[in-house]
Each structure stands twice: as structure tokens, then as C-alpha cells.
């Protein structure tokens, strides 16, 4: 392979990367791959003083955005206004990622 061919192949590779980044930001690809591989059902539970009810994902995403923070709790996230409150949302990873995919933003407390 001569030099020009090598340069052309490199340029073509750069074009592919630039195109992908233009249509789908590279920094979100890893997240999207993980999300796509996760086949579990999204689940969001609202806990009100030890009574737990399932919240439709639609409302769940909107509500967790309005909470003070979400804290990782085993394989799920606990989203709350007050950390000591009897009211909180328990959101599994798939639901949490779906909300993020839909453009909702939840503050994660480490």
C-alpha cells in the first residue's frame, strides 16, 4: 500500500468517526450500548411510609428529576427530597437509564 492510499484510508476512518459523532455524540455511545444490552424491565416504585406502589415510567422520570438527589442503593437508585424521608422513589437501572435517554436529568449523590 503506497503512502497516498494509507492517507486516504486514514482520512476515510476520520470521516466515519466525525460522522458518527455528528449524529450521535461519542461520549454517549458507551451508555447507549450498556442500555441496549440491559434486557431487564424498567421498574419504578414509590414508597410512601412503607406502602409501595408502582409508578408508570412516564411519571417516574418526571418525578425523579424534581427530587433533591438519587443515591445508588444496591442495583437500584433511591431518589428522595429528604434523605431521612419516608417518601422516596426506588428506580431500577433500566428505568433510570431510560429516563436519562429521554432527556431527564437526575442529580446523583455519590
Amino acid at each position, binding site marked *: 500500500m*503506497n503512502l*497516498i*492510499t494509507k*492517507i*486516504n484510508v486514514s*482520512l*476515510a476512518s*476520520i*470521516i466515519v468517526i*466525525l*460522522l458518527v*459523532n*455528528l449524529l450521535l455524540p461519542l461520549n454517549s455511545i458507551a451508555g447507549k450500548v450498556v442500555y441496549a444490552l440491559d434486557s431487564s424491565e424498567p421498574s*419504578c416504585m*414509590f414508597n*410512601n411510609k412503607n*406502602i409501595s*406502589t*408502582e*409508578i*408508570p*415510567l*412516564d*411519571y417516574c*422520570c*418526571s*418525578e425523579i*428529576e*424534581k*427530587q*433533591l438527589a438519587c443515591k445508588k442503593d444496591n442495583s437500584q437508585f433511591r431518589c428522595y*427530597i*429528604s434523605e431521612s*424521608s419516608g*417518601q422516596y422513589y426506588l428506580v431500577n437501572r433500566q428505568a433510570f437509564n431510560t429516563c436519562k435517554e*429521554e*432527556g*431527564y*436529568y437526575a442529580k446523583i449523590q455519590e
Partner: protein
Amino acid sequence: MPKSKNKINKKIFFQFLLLGILSLLVIVLTLLNLQKSMPLQIDAPKNVVYNQTTNTLQFDSLTLKQKIAQMVIVYGNEDNKELLQKMLIGGVHLGAKPSKEAFLQSIKTFQKESILPLFITLDLEGGCKNPFENFQSFPSAKEIKTAEEAYAVGYDEGLLLTEMGFTLNFAPVVDLEDSIWNCRSFSGTPLEASEKTASYILGLQSSGILATAKHYPGKTLSSSDPHKTLTYADITPDDIAMFENSIKNNVSAIMISHIIVKGILNSESKPGVVSDKLITDLKNQFTGLIISDEVMMLGLKEYYSNKDQMYIDLFKAGNDVVLNFNQDPKEIYHMISVVEKAVKKGTISEDLIDASAKKILQTKGINVE
């Protein structure tokens, strides 16, 4: 020239041609990527003629884009403050904060340097959804036993909200039943629930806060299937009576739900919030603010394959205020630009935008000339 040499020259020529084309493509794509990653640039508006002393705004000094922006309430992320102020956004919605001081600071940050006052909104639904949980508790709507108690709770919530600088509360929930959270609706017979709703609205508004009856036309919190996003409901006279009674008691705003309704009202197989029939019929009996439920919700988004069309339909249907809690200011600006283009093309009536923008400004207490 020998044939083989000619062939080699041709090959080299094509390799160089390809090199040129690929280099050009790399440059164009790099520029496009750079443009995409650049932060949104909006100039500070210098056209707005607003006299702060007399609180008077010359309506015609606003651009079409600014009038549309007045119709939008976004999620109050302080990082976006400057851009939102430059867009002349109508209001910000605040979520939970760790303390009263944090709320006060946030409200101050948003209102300061805003050319026109912003709506500062939240969902304070007593103890069921209480963003103030870290420093103040209230009973939930379900726990309220009498109409008198409902008035007192509304009044107390309103006093605190006014003191802190809020203007609009997205409460009360007027749906007769809440089978999801089980605490957001008033309890009792439809008549009892209706009386409590009216008293709560009177209490809240007596202390200076605009109340919002939600979610029109009802059954939003009882017909949702946790595994489905598009939801359907049959609306009964009892559902509507709750809103009629709220209107009779001068509720300032009504929030429209995403559910697809039939029965006594028909949204013509569309989510209520984009049904011009549903909203026009409501506007014939209610002159207050018509507010869309949050537009990122899947119950609306999944009805559309094209988000821009959804934005157009939301404004075209007659919503005065559109809630878009996407925290990317570029997306908010995109929505405003899409709607502006649709108005210029005649798809959305400019009179409709003008009427809503004026209604919003007047509700904020601004004298519009």
C-alpha cells in the same frame, strides 16, 4: 507514452483526487462538529421597551421569538440562567432543594437581571409531593378532612410560597381518583372533593399564589398502566364538574393532561394537550391560563414520530403555557425557533401567540400597551 505508464498516472491522479475530496470532507465535518459542540449564543435583548417604575411593557417591542419564549416554562437549572434570561423565557419550575435558603437564593438568581419578571413555579401538593419537605410539612390532599381545613392548608401554603417569591403553584390535583400515588386527590364523594378543591383554591389564591387545577379533563391518575405510555380514559360528568367548580371559584390556571379522552369530552384520538378541539372548548368557558403538562413525558412524545411536529401542535392547539423540562437550553431554543418558523409560515396563527403572550404578561401583573 506506453499504456502501462498511462494507467499508473491515471491511478495516481485518482488517488490524489480522492485525497482532495476526503480532505475536504474532513474539514467540513470538523467544522460541523465544532459548530454542534459550541455553546448556544444569544444576544442580550435590547429591543424590549419595559418601564420598571410603571411596570408597563410595550407589547410590540417584543420579537415573535420573545413572545413565544414568554409562553414557555422550563426547569430551573441555575447553570442555564443567563441563556434563559436572554431568551426572555416565561418562567422557571423549581424542584426540591435542601433548605429554604437554597430556594430563596435560586429565585433571587433567576429574577435578578431578568428583563421581564419570571413565573416561579413548583408542584406543592401538600404532604404527598412536597418540595419543601426539608423544612416544612403539610398534610396531603387525601388527609384533608373538611373544606375548612382545605382552605387553611391552601392559605398556609400560599403564604409560604408568596414569602419565598413563588408566583404559580401547579396544584390542586382535581382528578377524582389517584390510584398511582394514592395521596394526591381530595378524598370523599365527588361533591365533597369538589368542595375541598374550591376551598383549597380560595385559600391558596387569597394569599397571593395562582392555583392550577390539574389534570384536565380528569382520570389522569387513574387510567395509567405502569407498562404503557399512551393512555386512554372515558370522561364522565363527575370528572368535568370538578373543573367547572374550579372555574366558578376563579382558579387562575388549568393544566391539560396528555391522556387521550372520549366520553363526555373527546380529544379526537389525540393526547388532550394537542387536541385543539378539547382546548378550544375549554377556552370558551375559561379565560385563565391553559398550561400543558410537561412535554417530555412519554405519553405525549411517543404519539409523535417527529418532535418538531409535536412542538408545533402544542402551540397550535392553543396552550398558553408550555412546560418543557428538558435541561438543555439548545433544545428549548430549538423548540422556540420551530414554533417561530411555523408562525411565519402561517401554520400557527400569530394572533393566537399574541393573545397567549399578552394573557401571560397580564397574569404576571404587567401593564401591556
